[in-house]
């Protein structure tokens, strides 16, 4: 199926969103969910093609001389598109609960920008050349800016400023010259099996180019260009969840995987050692951001730094110049995506249901929000990479990939980081389940009563009486449903990663 179709559902749904508007919000959100399922269906059709070794492509639109905009499907991109479209549906369901009970303003604008961002993600996922990827990348930055500044407060404005400055700055200052340089060197920007940059270009040039790409793709959040990610956490939680745990950041690392595979080529990268110097910075990022995560008491900030750390895993995977590692990196996009979105959903649920944002306030929350906290535990295990969570497979493959080109010291870093993950993530559910509930404060009760009340009005789907009777104060039903879905996938993928593996086996390395 022509990958151009994937742009249709997210763009076609915009008039519907506008038409239904705030007045008929149920229809508005229903239309998004329908579009999400259509998109998922299209991506699934493409999966069926790709898994059989085909690579469906769109027509091309000539832009500058030989350079054109074109989409084509290949395994890594298809995997990413599937992930993003699946999570779009789930996040929309989650937002219904979150945005309404949190009484967010301008929800129509929110959903429109969201849809545009998804379209941008799709075109990045299926980009056939660097130019298309660059355009999609910039479109994603611009379309997500209104989402980051959604609240309109000073903090949101400040976060938006950091966000746009870092992402635009790196992409214009470093990524654009990298793309142009590649074009000048090779006369093309197409993604080709085995890469377009040959060893004849020289190690120094390749090393500089690799640096321009890795640092220029600011969305991959390698240090020192990681600041935008915590800054963007001022956005509403569904945004943080989908965009800053999945779509935006994963577009960054996905682009790097694609560039490593199809622009440099695994062999060129391995033979020249061009990426070696960046490996040091990436490993530093892994460890440093894990340590910073320890110091953060704000739940979303801790998750943000954990994301920075996990993204550098994928950067490492891209730079290891081994097909095993890149496969692992692509799997990690999915595994980490599900685990991290679960964690963000939980953080949002805790905010909505219990009005808590700090980790130190979470003591005893396991009693009132057991479902959320169980999901949080599963998500944490997914990030850490312990069974029965799916993160194990991807970490294992990246670790295996380090052996291919003799970067065995990186295994030590990965293991150390795993220990750090346990330290800063698992401690949260432990507090919630095993520490006693603090003495109730009248103000807190008042708030939580309010929120359950608000959610009761419109969503009686799942918040049954039995839950109330047990003294549970969970998030609104749609949000809870989303949390359960994503955390189940984390476990499902541990037992059944075969579809991903089958897809990634189709990648043409040379």
């Amino acid at each position, binding site marked *: 199926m022509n990958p151009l179709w994937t742009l249709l559902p997210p763009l076609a749904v915009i008039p519907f969103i506008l038409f239904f508007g705030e007045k008929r919000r149920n229809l508005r959100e229903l239309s998004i969910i329908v579009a999400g399922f259509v998109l998922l269906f299209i991506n699934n059709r493409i999966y069926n093609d790709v898994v059989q070794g085909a690579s469906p492509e769109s027509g091309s*639109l*000539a*832009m*500058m*001389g030989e350079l054109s*905009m074109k989409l084509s499907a290949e395994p890594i991109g298809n995997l990413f598109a599937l992930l993003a479209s699946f999570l779009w549906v789930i996040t929309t369901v989650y937002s219904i609960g979150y945005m309404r009970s949190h009484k967010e303003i301008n929800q129509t604008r929110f959903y429109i920008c969201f849809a545009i961002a998804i379209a941008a993600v799709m075109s990045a996922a299926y980009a056939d050349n660097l*130019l298309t990827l*660059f*355009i999609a990348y*910039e*479109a994603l930055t*611009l379309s997500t800016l209104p989402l980051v*500044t959604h609240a*309109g407060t000073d903090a949101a*404005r400040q976060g938006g*400023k950091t966000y*746009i*400055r870092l992402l*635009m*700055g790196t992409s*214009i*200052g470093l990524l*654009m*010259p990298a793309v*142009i*340089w590649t*074009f*000048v060197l090779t006369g093309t920007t197409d993604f080709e099996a085995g890469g377009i940059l040959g060893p004849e270009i020289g190690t120094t040039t390749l090393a500089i180019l690799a640096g321009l790409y890795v640092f220029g793709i600011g969305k991959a959040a390698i240090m020192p260009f990681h600041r935008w990610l915590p800054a963007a956490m001022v956005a509403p939680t569904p945004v943080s969840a989908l965009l800053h745990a999945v779509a935006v950041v994963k577009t960054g690392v996905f682009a790097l995987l694609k560039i490593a595979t199809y622009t440099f080529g695994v062999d060129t990268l391995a033979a020249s050692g061009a990426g070696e110097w960046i490996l040091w910075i990436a490993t530093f990022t892994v460890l440093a951001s894990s340590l910073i995560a320890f110091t953060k008491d704000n739940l979303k900030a801790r998750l943000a730094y954990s994301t920075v750390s996990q993204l550098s895993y994928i950067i490492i995977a891209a730079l290891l110049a081994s097909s095993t590692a890149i496969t692992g990196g692509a799997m990690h996009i999915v595994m980490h995506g599900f685990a991290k979105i679960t964690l963000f959903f939980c953080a949002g649920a805790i905010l909505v249901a219990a009005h808590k944002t700090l980790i130190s306030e979470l003591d005893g929350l396991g009693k009132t929000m057991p479902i959320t906290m169980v999901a949080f535990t599963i998500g944490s295990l997914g990030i850490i990479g312990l069974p029965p969570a799916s993160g194990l497979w991807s970490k294992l493959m990246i670790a295996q990939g380090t052996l291919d080109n003799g970067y065995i010291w990186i295994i030590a870093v990965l293991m150390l980081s795993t220990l750090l993950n346990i330290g800063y993530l698992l401690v949260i559910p432990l507090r919630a389940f095993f520490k006693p509930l603090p003495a109730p404060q009248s103000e807190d009760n008042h708030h939580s009563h309010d929120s359950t009340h608000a959610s009761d009005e419109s969503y009686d789907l799942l918040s049954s009486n039995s839950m109330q009777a047990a003294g549970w104060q969970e998030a609104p039903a749609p949000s809870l449903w989303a949390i359960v879905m994503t955390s189940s996938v984390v476990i499902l993928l541990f037992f059944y990663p075969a579809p991903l593996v089958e897809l990634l086996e189709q990648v043409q390395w040379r």
Partner: protein
Amino acid sequence: MNFFDQVPALQIAVPLIGAPVCVLLRNGRAAWAVTQFCSVICTLLSCMLVAATRDGTVIRYELGSWSAPSGIEYYVDIVNASVLLVVSFISAIVCLYAYRGAEKEIQQDKHYLFYTGWLLCITGLLGIVITGDAFNAFVFLEISSLATYLLISLGPDRNSLTAAFRYLIMGSIGASFILIGVGFLFAATGSLNMADISARIPIADSPRTVLVAFSFLTVGLMIKAAIFPLHAWLANAYHYAPVTVTALLSGTATKVSLYLLLRFFFNVFGIQFSFGQMLLNYVLLPAAIAGFVLMSVVALYQSDLRRMLAYSSVAQIGYIVAGICLVSPLGISAGIVHIINHALIKSALFMATGCIVYRLGHAHIQSLGGMAKQMPITTAAFIASGLSLIGVPLTAGFISKFNLIAAMLEQGWWIGAALILASSLMATLYIGRVVEIMIFRKPRTSTGTLEVNEAPMQMLIPLWLLIALSIVFGIFGNETLSIASAGAERLLTGPLAPALVPESAYLSTGAGQ
């Protein structure tokens, strides 16, 4: 004699006849209609010229059938046909905008004079571009300059008189330098026809005279094109002129001077002489680079939106000159494509600024808080054209910047490419600063609200037309790029006419035909 043969003459004749008609009508509305009509006709005529020259054809038109080099010759190839199109198209669009845009800024009883000045200005600019005669170019330069002084001095602010006077001084110096340069060329070659001069320069018996002519022309053209460091007149003129005039001038006046610069250095003096012997690129490239870096910084610190955009214009001219100075097909076509794209972008930006001035009466950046709420369409237009100025993909600015950087890298000018990027980042900052204030800052009024309406539709429609075009050229970049690379090819072929054999130098009259 069919109609098409006369198109080059009509290109000039139409606005030139329109101007006195405007004076005779003595009515603002009617004068506007005449100006709009003439601009549209000029646009159509230049479309025909572009279509005719696109394949490399050269149209040579002898004015009054006096044969060159004695008579005046109009020389049209793809390079100047495209500039003709830019000038007349911008004039047509901005004129549409001026219907409402000029009504507040210019006194009612002076409207007919305003449009007379407009048509004369366009006549002059089109004339500079179309003519193949060096002295004739000077004459048209004076026509356009005099008309421009008038247009600038019509501004609502008293400062506009000083600005017009300053422009007069600088413009006259520039024009005198050009005149002296042309004079020396005549002394050295005995001809004023560009094609003829280009054929005679290689055999001129006093190379020093040619050298002096070259120097005078270089300085004169640098002043008129506002190339750093001879750009000082531009900021004041753009700031205090009526915004409508600024929108017109920013898209046309400097571009025309840049064209003349291209024509003289590439075709009249020849690449070998200009860049091989005189090392012009070693003079202009540092100036251009210093221009776009420094002026982007200066733009960052302006408190008035018009002034900020004026300095940004100087920076953008730097890009164009930098592309030209690379003397490679890619570089020159990047320069030409940016002449086209920047005309669209900067005119759109000034038109958006004009909408703000129309409602607020000023354009102080710090007082633009609350604009996004009150004038959302204008704000959106400013953002869209601002993104194009920065060079975000899918806008015309991206095409220019991509090619310019590619041209720099192709020649191994890493530092130049890096500095272009640095100045792009500064553009992000100075545009971003304004946008941020427009969207987030509370209005600076006592009540905390801004009581203004959206600008009138007659202003917004032409503005968005330009933006739409800049997006179209951003997606279908080949439309402009193919014209630009045809132009680059033309310029790189060197002299307009084959060099003469020394013996027949002073005998031949029909040289280059």
